[in-house]
């Protein structure tokens, strides 16, 4: 053994300690090049392109793109949609995760599978479901028309579709975390006389807050960026039912490239901000975890 080890060291010119799992320099560098090339081509290049195109005619033209009333309306609608669907999913997600991870009941695995449904189906189908239910020819179509309620090709439809598509994010984030934490602390709180509500606010929620925060920002990113499902239910009415991603498409189809990329850059910035926040939360979470062990 000793002779093998020493012969390995002698063949390595770097002088670093011999490592059993290290490949030759040629293999390492070619793998690194491939990986970097891949990341550059698929991730960095498009991101750079968005900003380059957006700023092609200067900063003035870039900011002018946002002065357009249609663009402003798209921004407002996107914010409104996120402001409704994220809190809704926050409540649903926490309730679902609490239910799945702290209680045993029949049909639990079915529920877990159902939570994943929006991830499993194509976003276009998600949108279509609502058209089939609430559309003019849909199940409730005639009733809705009779009562003058507009869901499809209107804001409610967009909110519904977005909420559906983003439903799993928070629940998915919380279920493994809450399952890992178990139920002992809750039981302890109950034996000490805490009510179910007190147990939730004082024990469960503080323990999941970082995971919850993480789920919320991922959910928010998706809610603002969703294209497929929203596209189906929106009807693309300018200034009324266009969200940011839909507005980008329209501008692009009209050869208004600077406008399209400027609006797209907003979404790109949102993505970057999300990733920064996400890394921060992961770092915080690791710190809290580290302190707990």
């Amino acid at each position, binding site marked *: 053994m000793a002779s093998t080890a020493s012969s390995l060291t002698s063949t390595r010119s770097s002088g670093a300690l011999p490592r059993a799992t290290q490949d030759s320099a040629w293999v390492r560098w070619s793998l690194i090049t491939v990986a970097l090339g891949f990341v550059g081509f698929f991730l960095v290049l498009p991101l750079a392109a968005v900003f380059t195109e957006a700023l092609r005619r200067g900063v003035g033209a870039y900011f002018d793109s946002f002065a357009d009333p249609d663009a402003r309306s798209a921004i407002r609608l996107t914010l409104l949609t996120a402001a409704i669907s994220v809190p809704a999913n926050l409540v649903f997600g926490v309730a679902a995760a609490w239910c799945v991870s702290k209680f045993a009941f029949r049909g639990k695995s079915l529920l877990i599978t159902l939570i994943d449904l929006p991830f499993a189906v194509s976003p276009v189908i998600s949108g279509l479901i609502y058209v089939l239910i609430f559309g003019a020819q849909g199940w409730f179509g005639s009733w809705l028309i009779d009562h003058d309620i507009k869901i499809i090709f209107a804001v409610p439809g967009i909110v519904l579709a977005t909420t559906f598509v983003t439903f799993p994010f928070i629940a998915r984030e919380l279920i493994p975390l809450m399952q890992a934490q178990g139920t002992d602390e809750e*039981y302890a709180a109950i*034996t000490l*006389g*805490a009510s179910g509500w007190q147990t939730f606010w*004082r024990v469960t929620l503080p323990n999941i807050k970082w995971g919850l925060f993480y789920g919320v920002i991922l959910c928010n990113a998706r809610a603002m960026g969703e294209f497929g499902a929203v596209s189906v239910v929106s009807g693309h009415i300018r200034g009324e039912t266009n969200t940011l991603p839909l507005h980008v498409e329209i501008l692009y189809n009209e050869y208004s490239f600077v406008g399209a990329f400027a609006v797209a850059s907003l979404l790109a910035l949102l993505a970057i901000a999300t990733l920064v926040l996400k890394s921060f939360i992961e770092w915080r979470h690791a710190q809290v975890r580290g302190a707990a062990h």
Partner: protein
Amino acid sequence: MSIQATHITKTFGAYTALAGVDLHVPQGKLVALLGPSGSGKTTLLRIIAGLEHPDAGSARIAFHGQDVTHVPAGKRGVGFVFQHYALFRHMTVAENIAFGLNVRSRKERPSKAAIAARVQELLKLIQLEQLGSRYPSQLSGGQRQRVALARALAVEPKVLLLDEPFGALDAQVRKELRRWLRQFQREIGITTIFVTHDQEEALELADEVVVMNQARIEQVGTPQEVYDHPATPFVYQFLGSVNKLQLPWRGLPSEGSSIPFSDPKATVAFVRPHDLDIARFSIGLEGEVATVKSIHSAGALARITCQRGLGEEYIEVETSRQRLEELRLIPEDNVLLRVRKGRTFTEDYTI
């Protein structure tokens, strides 16, 4: 406060955790629920606490004669210490201890100052006065255990329930904490039940030991009773080491034996290693012939493993170091074994 549990049955699907168990714990006693894992002891403890519900039927839990079967856990007045302590990880030690007081309704809640004073008092009791502002993660296992106990005691429970209280601690800390708990329980005189799979712990600590196996109670008695007079082969084998001797056993029991092996139907006898006499083989002496296989003399007592006759039966004998020196035994020596005390059973039970 005495505890009375009657006809407790609990099934999880097809698995029976408790099969019609009855248990009475007198006021102020320290009782151990002892058994191997899966014997139902923790389930019984959780049912007494109200954290699990017994299967519907004639099951009944009473505290001091008062039926609490349908009283929720938080209103039963029990202090529960969990196996892994279940301290609230985001709260300091002081906040953990104060929790049970802080969650009370405004009418019943003591003033802030009163709560702080109570916390200080409990911190003093558990000898952690300086550590009130630490978080559970900054404490050692033994310290966490004591914090969990203080937290449970803060609400002045009438019954204290501990699930494997020393299970996760190392041997030294375990011994200290055991002594401390024993003394502490005597001082405040609170009726206490603890669950353990460690027979030594149960025998040393408890006023009364409840031996459980396979969803049933095998025997209830003082440590002396269950150790000296095991009711079933299971108890014999679970409490302390024991030799299972196939009968017939040649030679009579030694002089002064209280239980001769006279039952003709008996097929096996249980004999503790220290209830066997060992002597060098010589013609004229009574006893079962055996061959010495190994000798362990590190410790207060010497342990000799013998092979009975030519069979596959191995017998452990414990004797004083002095006796071992007198005998000057080495492996492969022939010896004679005589039973001083033991008990026969007709059926061949296995653990």
